């Protein structure tokens, strides 16, 4: 009996967790009138895709999505590659200043993005990178919530679980550091790299502050900036903004469900170590 009650409570929690997603998708498929007059949980009858079509073509969601893919993709690639390199050095190599550097890396995780925004904007201005993809992407590779230090930490912990014998054998065969990293460590670390890639992708996809400050033309407008502007312009015209929000969320829900096993495990891992 107690078990049943517990289960019911847990189930209710799950409903609260996914309810907003479901209601958003449901209401975005309603006519402008029905969004206002019917309850959010009342099914869209019949569902319409007109709102999605409107935001997709008229309000340039297709463009936002493309720009966000470029942005999040590039940031992910950069972070995974650079984090893996640094992680190997921190996990396996002896060099002066290693521990101090590693701790300094970790300490930078607590610096809020907004603290550095103005100077960073000025640095980008000096580099002539305002409103360019390079200006959008480069700093994001290193500074985001769950940025580079987190990635290095995650991969380093994983590298340390890999037996050294494998490396030693390769070294005896004459493999250099780079060869060991690429041929032995990386193939053995696929799950953690996939996880890091996913988490970084999610962070970049969701990032608002930096794109808001550094980009300003249509060519570089990403989803977060784009739909925030839509919300400002079409406040309370829920059929439009909900369709836009749903389109911004859906790709990630899919990514998440595909990789959920790894993500769930890696989140658990971060807390343990």
């Amino acid at each position, binding site marked *: 009996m107690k078990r049943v009650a517990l289960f019911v409570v847990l189930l209710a929690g799950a409903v609260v967790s996914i309810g907003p997603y479901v209601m958003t998708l449901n209401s975005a498929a309603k006519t402008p009138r029905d969004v*206002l007059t019917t309850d959010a949980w009342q099914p869209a009858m019949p569902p319409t895709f007109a709102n999605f079509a409107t935001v997709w073509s008229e309000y340039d969601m297709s463009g936002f999505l493309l720009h966000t*893919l*470029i*942005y999040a*993709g*590039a940031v*992910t*690639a950069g972070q*995974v*590659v650079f984090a893996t390199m640094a992680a190997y050095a921190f996990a396996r190599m002896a060099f002066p200043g290693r521990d101090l550097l590693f701790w300094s890396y970790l300490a930078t995780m607590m610096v809020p993005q907004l603290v550095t925004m103005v100077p960073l*904007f000025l640095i*980008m*201005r000096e580099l002539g990178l*305002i*409103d*360019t*993809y*390079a200006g959008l*992407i480069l700093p994001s590779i290193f500074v985001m919530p769950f940025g580079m230090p987190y990635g290095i930490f995650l991969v380093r912990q994983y590298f340390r679980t890999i037996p050294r014998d494998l490396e030693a054998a390769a070294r005896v065969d004459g493999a250099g550091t780079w060869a060991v990293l690429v041929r032995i460590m990386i*193939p053995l670390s*696929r*799950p953690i*790299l*996939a996880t890091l*890639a996913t988490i970084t*992708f999610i962070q970049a996809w969701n990032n608002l502050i930096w794109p808001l*400050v550094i980009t*300003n*033309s*249509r*060519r*570089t407008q990403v989803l977060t900036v784009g739909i925030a*502007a839509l919300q*400002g*312009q079409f*406040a*309370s*015209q829920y059929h439009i903004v909900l369709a836009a929000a749903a389109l911004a969320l859906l790709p990630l829900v899919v990514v998440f469900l*595909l*990789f959920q096993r*790894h993500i769930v495990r890696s989140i658990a891992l971060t807390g343990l170590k």
Partner: protein
Amino acid sequence: MKPMRTTTVLIAAVVVALAAGCGGSDDSGGSSSGGTVTLRYAMWDEVQKPPIERSLAEFAKRHPSIKVSIELNAWENYWSKLQTQLAGGKAPDVFWNHVSYFPRFSEQNVLTDLTPDINADKLDTSIYDPKLANVWKVEGKTYGLPKDWDTIGLFYSTKALQDTGMTPADLADLSWNPVDGGTFVKALQRLTVDAHGNHPTEAGFDAKKVKRYGIALQAPTGQQHWWNFALQNGCRLQDRAFGRWTIDQPACVQAIQFVQDLFQKYQVAVPASVTNPPNGPSLDQVVGRGQAATAMEGSWMLRAFNTALPKGGFGVADLPAGPVGKGSVYNGLSEAIYAGTKHKKEAWELVKWLASPESQRIITEAGTVWPGISGLNDTFVRAWKAKGVDVTGFQKAAAGTTMSFPLTKSSSVYVEKSLDIFNQVWLGKLTPRQAATRINTESNNAIQ
């Protein structure tokens, strides 16, 4: 393992995308390739975009080597974005300019003086209303040519009037006063009705279940509501051009009080919790949904109302008269050329075109905004007559007593502070005096 393959593909795709993306970013900003120049042109009004695109198509015929790319940012983001662009040294070549930010821009030297070009091309500037043209002149320099003008009117839903047994004539010649609200408030009380058909003046009126309110009010700065009442009450927002703010003067506070009364005392306005920015719907939506019978709005909203309401569904009445008479806020925009543009010659061609009778005729015929060229006002009237709406009231207002946006360098402070503070006044959480004093002090402190 599957995730790894996916990751590899992902990273590969990304590297390609990055290469493409970075390559593509090279031509951001005004650029020239193969003799063709692309100008960036920034604006904030979605509604005006289609007719402007039509005008730009004509421009392209005349100047095949100049391409124009429109950058649209809604008013809420426009100024923050534009100023960030100016700070970043990457502003659009041509952008819409507004009186409230103009003094700061001219001081920051981010605008191009058009006088040499006007003289070189022997442009006839007498076609513009001097009232509009003179705004953009500072110390012998001209920073813009009039794009349009606007005044404020009382938009009404014809259905709401019919349901109440009123005619448009009942909204003409209304007047208000700070004591009992006058005939204006009486008309709005008639138009306000609860679920049981009671009006606010009747016993049993249920303020919690109002079916339709008499009026909807929303104005981030005050332009569409209290500034008009202020003018009609003899209040001046500043002591002189580039002077100090004076909105804490009794005549001004009284006007703010009157708007608060419409919300709180008379209960004829759609509650501020609904209409307050940033989450409040635009007023064409509020009237379109039947929540309000009328709305005070600017003439630039005509097309929005035309879309939100069925054909013949709305009309425009004059603003009421106040203790010192009639009056409306009068304002106009211009197109500015960024001082840092790499294509000054082409930008001037665009600005010259947009200020030309040919272009303004195309835009005026669409009925989006009143034209900067006085001779085209009749075209605007005819365009709306064809849609069954009499818009001559805006013209009358412009010819009468008007008030312009204050000329000051502290607009961004006023705008940034007043939104949240006035929201509280309309909610009844702050007295008009407290609000006026606070904003007046902070805005004046920002003037150096």
